[in-house]
């Protein structure tokens, strides 16, 4: 395989761990009743966000989803501000107005998580259009799920991005379920990547639990986009290790068995796989990687502390931030 410098590999590993530990903390705090609202965990899918976004520059764009924490962290999102937002605090990314599904940070190209599935597709397309019109070489990446690939906007967005040859990349996180609905039961093609042919763009289907495979393919697509050769569609086959949302509980058993989940944990955990690889290849030692993990634990604890200690917004602040230069 083409060589990836250690520093990069370390960054990738660290980000995957950061996502995992952030999500585990979110789950814990939700179950304790500390975090309000809806949360969709990225646990099990870390290799997709990290693999793809590791190919991007800070000024490139991403459009994220309802299951967005992983994308945001991979793009460089600050876990303090994220956690504070999940707490509904004034210091959060959105001053408590957005919550889990609406975190954005335009300065590092995060165009926002999005509560409407597949809705980021045209928005990302528009960012790619903007990059092209401004004669920049910024690339824009849209993440969406297997369920999202059946929304009409998927079709409109990919067609237009292709017609205008935009520097956009469409990453389908196929975790085989849309809430409870199995992909094969509601999707006319087995592989979402096949749909690329309807838009005359390259389509790839990769093991989304293998961060290096994702990275390699994404790199190709990003290079293509930067060169002005147009969009690509990448399907990453991955798996959601937790319920659709935190608190789904027993209902999960109505669509998948404990065994199925267990099997994925054992065979497909992207972090375990990547860690084993790094150690086996003598790139990093086990203890070194475990020190990294401890560092991350600290970060997360600090994020929680920051959030805990932050003030809530004042009720009246609900009336701010609607219009630029307010309008009543």
């Amino acid at each position, binding site marked *: 395989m083409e060589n990836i410098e250690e520093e990069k590999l370390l960054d990738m590993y660290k980000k995957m761990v950061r996502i995992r530990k952030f999500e585990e903390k979110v789950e814990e705090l939700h179950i304790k009743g500390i975090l309000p609202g*809806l949360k969709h965990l990225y646990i099990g899918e870390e290799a997709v966000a990290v693999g793809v976004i590791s190919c991007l520059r800070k000024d490139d764009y991403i459009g994220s989803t309802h299951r967005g924490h992983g994308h945001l962290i991979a793009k460089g999102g600050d876990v303090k501000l994220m956690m504070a937002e999940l707490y509904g605090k004034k210091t959060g990314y959105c001053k408590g*107005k957005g919550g889990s599904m609406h975190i954005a940070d335009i300065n590092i190209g995060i165009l926002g998580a999005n509560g409407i599935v597949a809705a980021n597709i045209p928005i990302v397309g528009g960012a790619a259009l903007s990059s092209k019109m401004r004669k920049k070489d910024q690339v824009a990446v849209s993440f969406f799920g297997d369920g999202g690939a059946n929304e009409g906007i998927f079709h409109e967005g990919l067609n237009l991005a292709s017609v205008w040859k935009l520097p956009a990349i469409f990453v389908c996180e196929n975790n085989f379920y849309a809430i409870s609905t199995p992909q094969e039961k509601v*999707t006319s093609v087995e592989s979402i990547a096949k749909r690329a042919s309807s838009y005359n763009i390259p389509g790839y289907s990769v093991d989304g639990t293998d961060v290096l495979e994702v990275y390699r393919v994404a790199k190709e697509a990003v290079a293509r986009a930067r060169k002005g050769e147009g969009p690509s569609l990448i399907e990453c086959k991955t798996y959601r290790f937790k319920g659709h949302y935190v608190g789904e509980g027993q209902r999960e058993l109505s669509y998948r068995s404990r065994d199925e989940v267990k099997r994925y944990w054992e065979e497909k955990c992207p972090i375990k796989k990547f860690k084993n690889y790094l150690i086996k290849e003598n790139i990093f030692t086990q203890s070194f990687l475990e020190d990294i993990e401890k560092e991350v634990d600290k970060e997360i604890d600090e994020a929680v502390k920051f959030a805990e200690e932050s003030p809530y917004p004042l009720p009246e602040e*609900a009336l701010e931030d609607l219009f630029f230069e307010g309008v009543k």
Partner: protein
Amino acid sequence: MREITFGEAACEAISEEMEKDERIFYMGEDVGRFGGSYGTTKGLFEKFGEERIKDTPMSEAAIVGFALGAAITGMRPIAEIMFCDLLCLAMDQIVNQVAKVRYMFGGKVKVPLVIRVPFGGLRRAAAQHSQHLEAWFLHTPGLKIVTPSTPYDVKGLLKSAIRDDNPVIFFEHILLFQKKGYVPEKEYTIPIGKADVKKEGKDITLISYSLMLQRCLSVAQNLEKEGIDVEVIDLRSLFPLDMETIINSVKKTGKVVICHQACLRGGVGAEIAAQIQEKAFDFLDAPIKRIAARDVPVPFSPVLEDFVVPTEKRIEEEIKKMLY
């Protein structure tokens, strides 16, 4: 007296109607074995199987469009849109097709179609999962709009909606699903278009529907103790809108407060206020007061959302302001 939850009552209505009429079927996202994201179809899959309780892809426009095609060719579909905000994805099929086909075709087709839509802020679900868009449909000739507030009402009204040969958009508040209440074992229906006076009173008329109706009712009960006699009208359906019941109450009280969870500007309260002042101008002792969500997207943080959505405290204060 049997007590069941709002959600159970709704499923009972569907189940009883489906047993009687095999043309009825149900389609939507995760409505099958999963039982609906909010429990809208609990137990129905086990009873009727996947032929009649259909899981669909994530394709809201297609869900409504396919249901419409089936409705005008001999079936009686119930199409679920998982939550209100998602109606935005199906507006062409709902507004340009479902609501208009009968009229455009000169009355030569029937559209026995129920579009079932859970809604409801106050779940800390933020701006894209908390909207109450019923006012848009008030402005869309061709649809009936139903908004039940109790287990008893949801069962009787949903049955009427399913039996109706016209398209009905049926809004159920997600925070009501677990609410328990009296629901008779024996068959009954509630006609769409009649408001229900949930509490009689002579001092002031308080008009609401869905979850806010419950808040209004408890405010009214508290005020009772202070000797303030509030009449609480549950609209039950927004179209047909039972102005007769409203006007009769206004003539008695001379004072009106309208409360809904949708934002104020352009909300259902505006239409009702406009009609009341038109039809009962001389009976009004004071301006009609509208209490609604403030005109911003629904924010996430509980502190903020609770400021935006009408609270019992706010309702009570507004009522007192009007009386003193």
